């Protein structure tokens, strides 16, 4: 069973600061981590490999420093890692990212299951997993909370829906995104960490994966971020005067004004 796990390196905080001039994230001084939801994807991949054999390849699209996230993934038990990195990918939205990752996965060649986290901590869209499935023309299941069975070209999984659970069967290969209910991610191992320090992690460029220039990066991204801003926080206080009845009437009319 060959499993591909897609991960993303994200700022290790939810307290994101934005440069008001450039409309981009201020990354200086913020530690980078593996997107926490992707840790569940890594754990599920490693767990399936331990049960069914095969190998787990972890893949990320990002700048050269995303290498650190891949090494951490190796310390958590994945077998191989690939960094997909090229200046041409800069500015990719979820559509272009899905395109680039799907091209890289096609280059990997043989795979049975692709696992992603359900969303990222920074972008929060949850669109890349389904995007990859669409581009590879294979089935997709979101918010998987349990893999019941997998093998012989089929899988049966449970996924979270608002009212409860849904059990879905699908052919393989397929893409799933996993929710945090699926497992408890392990801590790194000593052997894994030693291995991760010396692991050779290939860097694939746009050329290597055969990505067309007008489909990746800013050029391939239909999304345009026009402006990013924080909502203004305003506080206004008004002291109500008069007897209790007058104050209550005034309060109600004020509240009605807001609604």
């Amino acid at each position, binding site marked *: 069973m060959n499993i591909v796990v897609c991960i993303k390196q994200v700022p290790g905080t939810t307290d994101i600061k934005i440069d008001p001039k450039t409309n981009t994230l201020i990354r200086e001084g913020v530690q980078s981590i593996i997107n926490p939801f992707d840790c569940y994807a890594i754990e599920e991949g490693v767990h399936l490999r331990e049960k069914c054999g095969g190998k787990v390849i972890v893949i990320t699209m990002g700048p050269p420093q995303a290498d650190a996230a891949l090494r951490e993934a190796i310390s958590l038990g994945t077998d191989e890692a690939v960094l997909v990195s090229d200046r041409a990918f800069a500015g990719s939205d979820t559509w272009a990212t899905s395109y680039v990752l799907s091209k890289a996965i096609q280059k990997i060649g043989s795979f049975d299951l692709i696992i992603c986290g359900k969303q990222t901590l920074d972008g929060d869209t949850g669109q890349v997993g389904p995007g990859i499935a669409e581009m590879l023309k294979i089935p997709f299941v979101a918010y998987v909370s349990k893999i019941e069975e997998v093998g012989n070209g089929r899988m049966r999984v449970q996924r979270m829906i608002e009212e409860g659970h849904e059990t879905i069967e699908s052919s393989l290969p397929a893409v799933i995104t996993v929710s945090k209910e699926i497992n408890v991610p*392990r*801590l*790194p*191992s*000593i*052997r*894994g*960490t*030693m291995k991760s320090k010396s692991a050779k992690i290939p860097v694939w460029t746009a050329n290597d994966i055969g990505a067309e220039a007008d489909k990746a990066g800013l050029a391939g991204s239909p999304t345009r971020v026009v402006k990013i801003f924080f909502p203004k926080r305003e506080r206004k206080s008004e002291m109500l005067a008069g007897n209790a009845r007058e104050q209550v009437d005034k309060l109600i009319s004020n509240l009605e004004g807001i609604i």
Partner: protein
Amino acid sequence: MDYFLTEQQQLIRDLARRVAEERILPVRAELDEKEEFPWSIVKDIAASDLFRVFLPVEYEGLGEQAVGLCIAVEELSRACCGVALTYAADALGSIPIFLYGNEEQKRKYLPEVAAGRKLTAFALTESTAGSDASGIKTTAVCDGNDYVINGTKQFITNGGEAEIYTIIAMTDHTRGPRGASAFLVDKGTPGFTFGKKEKKMGIRCSATSELVFHNCRVPKENLLGKDGQGFIVTMKTLDLSRPGVAALAVGLAQGALEAAVEHAKNREQFGHPVTAIQAVQHMLANMAMDVEAGRALMYASAKTIDSGVKNYSEEGAMAKVFATDMAMRVTTDAVQVCGGAGYMRDYPVEKMMRDAKINQIYEGTNQVLRNVIAHEVLKRKALRK
């Protein structure tokens, strides 16, 4: 202080600290309260390769010996001495196998221990034997290709939870200590059952149990070392394990010091935090010096052992006695610094003080070990190097 750890040793420390902070800390009070064996943490320790640390590389260990063991034990014990003891007792149980086991025994047992699939235990103590190893009543009688074991072991750490037991039994009562032999007994062997599960003052999540042998047959291949070598096996095993007990104490005291500092910084009296009071400052200073002295002696003894010297009874005993007496003082003072709150079970130092006491007792009481140290001091003809 910098103990100049290698890259792999730093890795062991960082990982053991993560296990301690992320997996042990959130549940330590509950484990203590419920006296519950920490199986899920044992699995985390296994998955992170920490059971491999002290075992030889040939048997899927990491070959980090006594120093590696001390690093891991200290970090685990900083969060919970009971969990750390479960780990340290597993090391204790594996020592006689890699010191005295034949190739077949090592191949059979050590990779399982390294992977954390099986826990081990070492069983010497009986109701009539502890400090006095010659008081052992458990017997092993040779019968054809087997030994038949009868008797009861008492206060055995990891008892009931471990799969692999090294037990000391008398094969020849007429020869005194030279009539003792060591045997490997697997859990589930007919005639081998578990008796009373002890209720303890501290280290309450660790398992302490009686082992009961009633006509328990083990094949001759399970003899560890030679017939009559049981006393030597015991002494050498405990010599090697004692820096690990020092590490239990150092980690525990470090945790208590940190808890006391944290509490004192936030506790206000007379209009300022109690850390502004010199009497409190001096207590914290003494505790910090004590912990560091214990740690230095622990590493010095472990490094001496790992360097390959032949006799290290004195070094191991010194580290164990000093560090465990130190931990009793430091945890007691930690309760004092925390005042009334420190005495309450809502705060961790109360448990730490209870956990500290046993360290002065097990693996050689501090009184017996002072005899060992005095014996070495008195027999020296010249000054030490």
